[in-house]
């Protein structure tokens, strides 16, 4: 993947949100280190899953890529062009190629606009007049996402949650983007509807060859959708690999713990023991020194507190499988995710 030119190349990406305090002059007294030095690439037509728990910076990453937020440091390169600090004018041509799908289908559609207006909005803003007119194109898009083209003049409140999310997808597709950032696109939906939208996104991704950055906390959904997966913890990528490598052979202790914590709807299988992480995710205002996961890790040593582990291809990893850990898990112990580990003994 790295030998060809990637569609999106992110290196050292950092976003610190300043915290203001004090009186009478409000000074910057600290920073929320939401994202702290991310490196990853997205190839054309590829889907990269970003997983992690709340507060790990995955949504911030999505907003940085789409340049809805200004990065504090690092570099974002889109098709060879540096867009890290591009201004409004510089971003204009790129904005139509990078689109976003949001989590909440209720908040992300204007209730006062008809579906036709919502979906043709991006075309209006960018002054695009497709052949046959915008209305024809909107009807096509509605058809692609599985809605009735006759519903062109309806308002969002007339649709269910799943249908609204389809409208959001149609809007994202309107400009024929090359990259879509989908931020938790299915987590607000009921299980039976969730599958409909996942299938739709997958169809769109495969048939139209659009690259996706798929942000989600649900590991099973990410596994289903993504070709490559990055696991984030407290503003850093702790592991990134091709899907099967990551799920079959997780090397980072956090990835293992995360996988083992997912409850699965099977009762036939051997009741699997689980890695139980103790405590909560530390505050990103004052993250632990060294490896940020060390406060909850059962393998942590002195070295973990002093030295931040680099994201590298650990011994025994397949090419492209990078792990940021001083003591990566080994594959031959127990296959994940049905692995076992006594958390008490470890803690």
């Amino acid at each position, binding site marked *: 993947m790295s030998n060809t030119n990637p569609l999106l190349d992110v290196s050292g990406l950092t976003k610190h949100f300043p915290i203001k305090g004090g009186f009478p002059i409000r000074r910057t007294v600290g920073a929320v280190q939401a994202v702290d030095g991310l490196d990853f690439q997205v190839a054309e037509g590829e889907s990269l899953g970003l997983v992690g728990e709340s507060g790990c910076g995955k949504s911030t990453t999505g907003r940085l890529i789409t340049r809805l937020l200004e990065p504090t440091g690092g570099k974002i390169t889109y098709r060879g062009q540096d867009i890290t600090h591009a201004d409004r004018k510089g971003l204009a041509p790129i904005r139509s190629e990078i689109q976003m799908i949001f989590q909440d289908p209720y908040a992300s559609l204007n209730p006062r606009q008809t579906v036709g207006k919502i979906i043709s909005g991006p075309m209006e803003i960018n002054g695009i007049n497709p052949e046959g007119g915008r209305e024809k194109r909107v009807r096509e898009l509605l058809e692609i996402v599985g809605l009735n083209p006759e519903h062109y003049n309806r308002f969002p409140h007339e649709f269910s949650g799943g249908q609204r999310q389809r409208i959001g997808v149609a809007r994202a597709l309107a400009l024929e983007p090359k990259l879509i950032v989908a931020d938790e696109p299915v987590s607000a939906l*009921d299980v*039976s509807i969730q599958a409909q939208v996942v299938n739709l996104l997958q169809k769109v991704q495969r048939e139209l060859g659009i690259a996706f950055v798929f942000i989600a906390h649900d590991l099973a959904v990410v*596994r*289903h959708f993504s070709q490559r997966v990055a696991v984030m913890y407290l503003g850093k990528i702790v592991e990134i690999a091709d899907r099967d490598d990551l799920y079959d052979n997780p090397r980072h202790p956090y990835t293992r713990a995360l996988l083992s914590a*997912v409850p699965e*709807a099977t*009762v036939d299988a051997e009741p699997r023991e689980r890695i139980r992480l103790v405590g*909560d*995710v530390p505050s990103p205002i004052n993250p632990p020194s060294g490896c940020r996961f060390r406060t909850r890790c059962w393998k942590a040593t002195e070295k973990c507190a002093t030295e931040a582990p680099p994201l590298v291809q650990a011994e025994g990893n397949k090419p492209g499988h990078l792990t940021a850990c001083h003591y990566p898990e080994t594959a031959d112990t127990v296959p994940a*995710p049905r692995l076992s580990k006594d958390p008490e003994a470890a803690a």
Partner: protein
Amino acid sequence: MSTPFLSLRDLKVHFSTEDGIVKAVDGLSFDLEKGKTLGIVGESGSGKSVTNMAILGLHDPRNTTMDGEILLEGKELISASESELEKLRGNKMSMIFQDALASLSPYHTIGAQIAETYRKHTGASKKEARARAIEMLRRVGIPQPDVRVDDYPHQFSGGMRQRAMIAMALVCDPELLIADEPTTALDVTVQAQIMDLLKDLQQEFGTAIIFITHDLGVIADIADDVLVMYGGRCVERGTKKQVLSAPEHPYTLGLLNSMPSLDGPVDVPLSPIPGSPPSLLNPPSGCRFHPRCAFAEKVTDGRCSSERPKLEVAEGRGSACHLTVEQKRELFSDYAATRHN
């Protein structure tokens, strides 16, 4: 046979709204014994939360009509007065809600909120109640409970707030605990901690738990028995093993099939249930699932759309579907093949 601890008989909860009558729960029956966990699964609007609010008597009587029976140790709750219910709530039965931040008062310390319940029901002194609050916080695994007891909710993390809620719900050693999506807002690693905690506490106190969730994975982890709700009715019930590994209702089957898993096949589309959940203002006739059901045409005479299927329960196992046992065996067999290879 002795009387079950909690028993619902043909419960109906209807709300009158401007648009008409919403039949949120429409004929629901189940029993629950002490020390057992009943998992109630269903999508939004299936009536699972409404059922449990009804058990606690939390519906506004001005726009709610309730019918049927709710028996707690043989005592009828639907007709019970507000003062009788007040004695039971927080004492004999209590509830944990999904959103812990919204369910805790931001103006009172965690300790004061736990102590209040305890003092109300036991008449303990302030000092005793505070000691009890610290004890409860310790039990649910809050570090430094004697310090954190004076914290306000915003000083707690999401997982800790949910623990504090559990401490509050359990402060009077209730015999019935209703947990309404208690882990939905939490991350998986914290969710796992909370579920372990509930299991431990149940073992210690023999509490009966009703666990409401939309996540079948959570059900597989925590429940003894499962009740699947759709459109205000129970469509299937049985033990966890029966329901999850040999579902008898097309809706349950559809739910299981639509879930991506960590070890199932990839690169094949998921099999979603088509359509969306029904409106309870104007629910479909007959079986409420029939407009979305893949097998509705297999039943002759259009009975699925004309006749409400009965829920026949034998030894706690049953489903409400017109398909015959033979038909199900034939039609559902693909399911086992795709899921367990």
